[in-house]
């Protein structure tokens, strides 16, 4: 296979050398730029991996010049938005489902169903659904994330708790014992920069609630489930069960409560974060478990998708690149390097590690987030009201009622 590819490449190069490079792009050739992010947290590994992808792809498609640019997570939306608005930017960009809808509804993306035409069935149906709007596909899933609970057994045992808390009631019962040792039962990050998908929403879903109604025409977080979820946090805070700065702290494991042993558990933690926690408090003290249960057992996990920007001039070539990066070979290698999980059924999940098996099992409880055109504005509104409730400047009822009324105004205006 490899030899064959090389042969084709050499032959094509020879042809190109003889005939010049003009007019060779008729069969989808051209140049494609991809904006990739540190899905592989280790920088050196990330550079090496994507360089390899670039080289491998170009070996098989000598008529397409692929450039994979590695960008930081910080300032991601500003950069993508200004790039698309100015017409100078990537053909393909890595997005989350809610971002995909946001860019789609503001005219920043083109449909790309053709990229998965031949093997649509190979992808997880939920992953495709989460980026399908108006019956058109706006992203090709290349991996899936998974989150679950993580525990610091050392601090739990020090407080005389031998069984790890798996339900809200367990957490509430454990909190005072842990607080006596100066340890928060559960980590929570209320910073306005923090996505609620990894903080409040999992609790809301565990309470049996949703952020939006089924058709997305109204918010639903102000129902009894939302009250229960926010009340759970407030109750927990009252008995010292949350970090002191829970209302405002950013989501850092390294140097944060989980990484320094001042929080006993996290409930929406990713695999790379577990590694950071192990480095902080010692691998022998860290165990992962099933997703936390309230009324229901739910975690958060979503696909990462490559989307086609509206400024892409080489659609055909870009879709070939997307299909290649989503292919089983690249997906397997990416999951191995990044600790992510397959977004397609014909790729085996990473094996050989007990922790990764737990994460992979957690996928069956994973909610990919609620994607509506106003999801991000609503998140921002709700986030500041949750801060107010955790700071005690608003009651649970007022915080949710205020957030809901502001969110309804937003939805009425069309996002």
């Amino acid at each position, binding site marked *: 296979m490899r030899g064959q590819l090389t042969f084709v490449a050499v032959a094509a190069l020879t042809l190109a050398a003889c005939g010049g490079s003009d007019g060779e792009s008729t069969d989808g050739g051209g140049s494609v730029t991809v904006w990739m992010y540190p899905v592989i947290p280790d920088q050196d590994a990330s550079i090496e991996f994507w360089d390899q992808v670039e080289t491998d792809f170009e070996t098989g498609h000598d008529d397409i010049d692929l450039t994979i640019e590695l960008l930081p997570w910080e300032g991601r939306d500003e950069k993508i*938005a200004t790039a698309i*608005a100015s017409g100078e930017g990537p053909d393909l960009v890595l997005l989350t489902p809610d971002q995909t809808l946001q860019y789609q509804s503001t*005219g*920043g993306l083109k449909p790309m169903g053709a990229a998965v035409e031949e093997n649509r069935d190979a992808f997880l149906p939920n992953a495709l659904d989460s980026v399908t709007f108006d019956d058109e596909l706006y992203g090709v899933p290349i991996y899936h994330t998974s989150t679950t609970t993580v525990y610091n057994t050392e601090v739990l045992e020090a407080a005389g708790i031998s069984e790890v808390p798996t339900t809200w009631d367990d957490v509430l019962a454990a909190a005072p014992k842990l607080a006596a040792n100066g340890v928060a039962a559960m980590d929570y990050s*209320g910073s*306005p920069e923090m996505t609620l998908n990894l903080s409040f929403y999992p609790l809301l879903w565990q309470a049996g609630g949703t952020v939006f109604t089924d058709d997305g025409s109204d918010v639903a977080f102000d129902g009894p489930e939302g009250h229960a979820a926010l009340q759970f946090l407030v109750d927990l805070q009252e008995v010292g069960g949350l970090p002191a*700065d829970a209302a*405002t702290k950013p989501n850092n494991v390294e140097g944060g409560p989980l990484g320094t042993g001042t929080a006993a558990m996290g409930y929406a933690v990713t695999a790379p974060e577990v590694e950071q926690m192990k480095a902080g408090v010692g691998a022998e003290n860290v165990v992962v478990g099933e997703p936390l249960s309230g009324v229901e057992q739910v975690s958060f996990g979503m696909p990462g998708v490559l989307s086609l920007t509206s400024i892409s001039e080489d659609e055909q070539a870009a879709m070939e690149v997307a299909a290649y990066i989503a292919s089983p070979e690249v997906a397997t290698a990416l999951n191995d390097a990044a600790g992510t999980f397959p977004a397609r059924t014909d790729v085996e999940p990473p094996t050989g590690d007990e922790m990764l098996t737990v994460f992979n099992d957690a996928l069956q409880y994973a909610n990919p987030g609620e994607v509506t055109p106003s999801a991000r504005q609503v998140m921002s509104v709700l986030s500041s009201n949750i801060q107010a409730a955790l700071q005690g400047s608003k009651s649970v009822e007022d915080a949710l009622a205020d957030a809901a009324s*502001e969110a309804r105004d937003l939805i009425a205006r069309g996002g």
Partner: protein
Amino acid sequence: MTVQRAAVQRASWRQRARDPGWGLLFVLPMLVLFVIFRFVPSLGAVGMSLTDYRLSGDFSFVGADNYVRLFEDDLFFHSLRVTLLYAAICVPLALVVALGTATLLHHVVRGQSVFRGLLFLPYVTSFVMAGIIWTWIYESDGLINGLLEKLGVGPVPFLTGNQAMVLASLAVVSVWKSFGYSMLILVAGLKNIPEDIVEAAKLDGAGPCSRFWRITIPLLRPVIFFVLVIETIAAFQVFDTIYVMTGGGPARASYGLVYMLYDQGFKFFDFGYAATVGVVLFLVVFLISLVQRYVLDREKT
């Protein structure tokens, strides 16, 4: 003969230099940059505020819709209040610190340039780095609270407490970062005060305090006015400190106008609405500058 010709040539040069066309030529490079990077975008923003401009570049003209929406938006009035409160804390603080350090510098006899350099140093540091480090300093287990704990005082919620506390903490960082510039302007102003007036006041028996209030401050008024205006504009435009240190929180306590503009434009991609916030911000700052000018000028006459 030769001498005469040279004199004639020099005169013609002088004449030509006085010609307004030549002056324009000299400022042309700056003017071009100014037009391209200031005027055009500003007018573009005014135009954009009348549209529903979206990411793809498609837009339709919506007239004053964005302005109507803005004046019905509680969030706008909230962020306007936050910005005014912040400016009310920040501007006097900046002026006092800049005037204090400028006066000290003016009276330092030896090593003036060293002290000036040291005091100016924060101005040339990166705002983001300064913001991150100040966040650590303010944290509940940070430098200040660590010292307070040794004195037996509980942790002060600098960036997580009530609105006045958060805005004051942010203002301290902004002032620390930017007072150097105002200080230099004031030092220049102090140097321009004629020594003989001060001398005369001394002979008349005026002490340092009354010299400061009756000679220095009145003569410094035009410079103070300028400093007040630039500090006010800077306070209204505050963004980087908020972005780095609080993200507009907690519970929107530091959600200022520029932060709202940023949210609308770069988080929600509603560029038309963001431009509207920008235009209104410009008008507010413009009005306040006019009022300041009126008040300070009236006192002078």
